[in-house]
């Protein structure tokens, strides 16, 4: 049971406090309810570029990193298609430095031209390093627009193309800040060995006078139900043919979300999973194969990906995969198999809960879903999943008509 307290400031900032008496460290985690899905199609990559700019100085503090390092802390941030998340980890007795820095950049940024110019080029190098200069690095840049036709999940967080980053202007940046970076669009979690009253007074002190901003009302174009099998082949200078079967799955709040997650585990989490055993160990068609979900807030993807062995054609593999998927749908998995999958889920969950940073991030994520108490129901939800549930979700998800297939062909 994860313990927490929750309160809201008058300006709308939602705050969670997680007490941990065993650590000398404190975590300050800030989640902004904005991700790449909130960008407009001609200005993609913006949420992520903006994350970089958040380190370029705020209205009253020229440099973000130096004071935090002086306090013995460090920090990082990430942007996904759904959210932007920032955190600081530092000695608990210096927590106010983190609150000072984090609240000042919620108040306003410095918006210097130099910062924009440099971070533009840093992000362009990141684009190259992660997506363009790696074998199979551009797969998600190709797969997203294949699987999503209308919804803004069709572009990756790094953006559709380099030019969107190159052309970002200061007025774009300022407008983005105004729209998304305010107490009413943020969730703060503080974790460490503090008392609730102490946390309340510190948070009030640093965040209480920040204007609430306008609550951003998301109105994204809904992805129409996919009714046709989609397929795309790209040729790249890579050593092996690779495949990515992406199936549409339910959104994060749907009751079947965790069942779909368990389904992906059953299919391809490890060397005991169905697809690994049949397609690799029995038939030797692939060098590796795995299945996983994107876990996104709106309708997500269940992906089966891997690489073909030399001499195996896409057609041969395709036939074998569908045979396996159909077989999986035709009868429920045994209770023994289910128990084994659940054992693995339990281990993973128990290890995730070891880390204080993980707990703080997780609390913010659940608050974003609208009900932080769900965090303590997760284990029970997994526990109650039956073999029949998995079969039912397999039947509705593993359909050719909701599948998008990307093939990477070796040149």
């Amino acid at each position, binding site marked *: 049971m994860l313990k927490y307290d929750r309160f809201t400031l008058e300006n709308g900032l939602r705050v969670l406090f997680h007490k941990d008496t065993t650590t000398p460290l404190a975590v300050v985690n800030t989640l902004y309810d904005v991700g790449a899905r909130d960008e407009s199609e001609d200005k993609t990559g913006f949420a992520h570029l903006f994350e970089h700019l958040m380190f370029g100085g705020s209205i009253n503090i020229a440099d973000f*990193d130096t004071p935090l390092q002086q306090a013995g802390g460090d920090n990082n941030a990430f942007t996904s298609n759904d959210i932007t998340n920032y955190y600081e980890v530092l000695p608990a007795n210096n927590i106010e*430095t983190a609150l000072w820095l984090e609240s000042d950049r919620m108040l306003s940024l410095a918006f210097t031209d130099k910062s924009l110019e440099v971070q533009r080029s840093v992000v362009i190098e990141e684009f190259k*390093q992660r997506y363009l200069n790696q074998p199979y690095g551009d797969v998600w840049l190709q797969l997203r627009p294949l699987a999503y036709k209308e919804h803004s999940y069709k572009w990756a967080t790094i953006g559709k193309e380099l030019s969107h980053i190159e052309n970002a202007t200061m007025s774009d940046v300022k407008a983005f800040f105004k729209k998304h970076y305010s107490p009413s669009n943020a969730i703060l979690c503080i974790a460490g060995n503090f008392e609730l009253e102490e946390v309340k007074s510190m948070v009030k002190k640093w965040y209480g006078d920040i204007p609430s901003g306008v609550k951003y009302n998301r109105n994204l174009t809904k992805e129409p139900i996919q009714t046709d099998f989609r397929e795309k082949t790209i040729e790249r200078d890579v*050593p092996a043919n690779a495949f990515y079967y992406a199936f549409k799955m339910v959104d994060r709040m749907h009751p079947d979300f965790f069942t779909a997650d368990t389904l992906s585990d059953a299919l391809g989490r490890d060397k005991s999973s169905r697809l690994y055993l049949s397609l690799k160990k029995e038939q030797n068609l692939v060098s590796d194969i795995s299945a996983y979900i994107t876990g996104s807030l709106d309708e997500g993807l269940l992906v089966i990906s891997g690489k073909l062995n030399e001499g195996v054609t896409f057609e041969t593999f395709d036939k074998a995969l569908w045979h396996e998927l159909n077989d999986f749908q035709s009868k429920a998995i045994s209770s023994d198999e289910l*128990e084994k999958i659940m054992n693995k889920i339990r281990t993973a969950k128990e290890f995730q809960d070891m880390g204080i940073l993980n707990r703080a991030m997780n609390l913010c994520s659940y608050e974003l879903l609208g009900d932080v108490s769900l965090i303590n129901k997760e284990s029970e939800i997994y526990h109650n999943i039956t073999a029949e549930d998995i079969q039912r979700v397999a039947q509705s998800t593993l359909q050719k008509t909701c599948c998008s297939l990307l093939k990477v062909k070796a040149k």
Partner: protein
Amino acid sequence: MLDRTIQPELKAIDKIEFIAPIEYKITPVVSLYHMKDVPNETTRFDLYFDAGKCRGKNAMASFVNGLLLSGTKNKTSIEINNEINGKGGFYESGISQENSVISVYSLRENVLDIFHTLKDAIRNVSFIEKEVLEFLSDRKQGFNISLQKVNYLAQRAFQEELFHSNENYSKTTQLSDFDNVSIQDLKEFHAEFYLKGLAKVVVVGDLDEEIIQQFIDESKEFALTTKPQYAQNIQNNVGLKHIDKTNALQSAVRVGRILFNKNHPDYLDFLVLNTILGDYFGSRLMSNIREEKGYTYGIGTMVAELNNVGYFMVATEVGSDVKDATLREIKYEFDRLKTELVTSEELELVKNYMLGQLLKSADGPYAMTDLFISVELHDLDLEFYNKAILALNNISVERIQELAIKYLNWEDMSIVTAG
């Protein structure tokens, strides 16, 4: 009215509590370390074998490490994996220059069952031909993918340059290695370095002594009886080497040299110099090459350690057009540390940062155990970290300059670029 221009008052870290695991002797030279103080159901155990890359021919060490669960006369690889996964275990195997480490993460109720499965698998692995061929074919494909990455190409060449004077350490995987493996070679390596090569066991988890005793009793047959020997003196090959990869958008850069480890009197102070130069976000190299010039997504330096030696390295990936400019800037930052004293503000900042990081690396039983293992490797104990705090508090700006002059000479560096 709140004055937001003023940083809240900073408090110093006065004390860090270091907790050592309990040591049990398996043989006079092999110990089991148990960290019991875990607040939940999680456990991890690590088996260290004297079966690192420096042992055996070619890529033999890496192949045997990867084949440990490939099956015995009585059990297939599928059955072994099924037993571990079915009990909720996460198996990891890794290899460094001098060690092969097998780790399993699980819940404590399953730890013994998994250990038994693993022990049987490792002891009786029979290198079934079908499994070996499949494994080599997968690895070869993975290797070919790696060869497309400038980062991998640079790191591989850097290893060759760094450990240049000692062939056992400088050898790297070659394509031909995959075609020249005999089952007999694998078996011989396994017999020499696994069946009689256990160097250390680490167990983290709230486990009873009886369970620990079983680990001890059942590990005994594998344990080393004499201390293994590792390279003492290694010289790196100085100068520039370029690995060509046409059409690469970015070039990977490595600059470094052989250095010392925790047993050397300059070690602790050099860590401070290393941090100033490139081991935190506000470092000289990050400020110059990322934040000032935008050449890269990231650049960093590190000090790494082996049993008897260590090394220092700068690593980055930069736009291919600014590769040479980056090398010039790295040299410039070396020289600046040699010719100009760092300011006391900068030193103060780095000290505070490093203390905070030390606090973080001592937080929780898993981190604490790893911190302990990194001194145990050099026959030191946790007192080392109290000395580190003292050293941090006493270091001067002159001392930083002295170490820069002594160790950061461009002429002493192995420099590798790929792209």
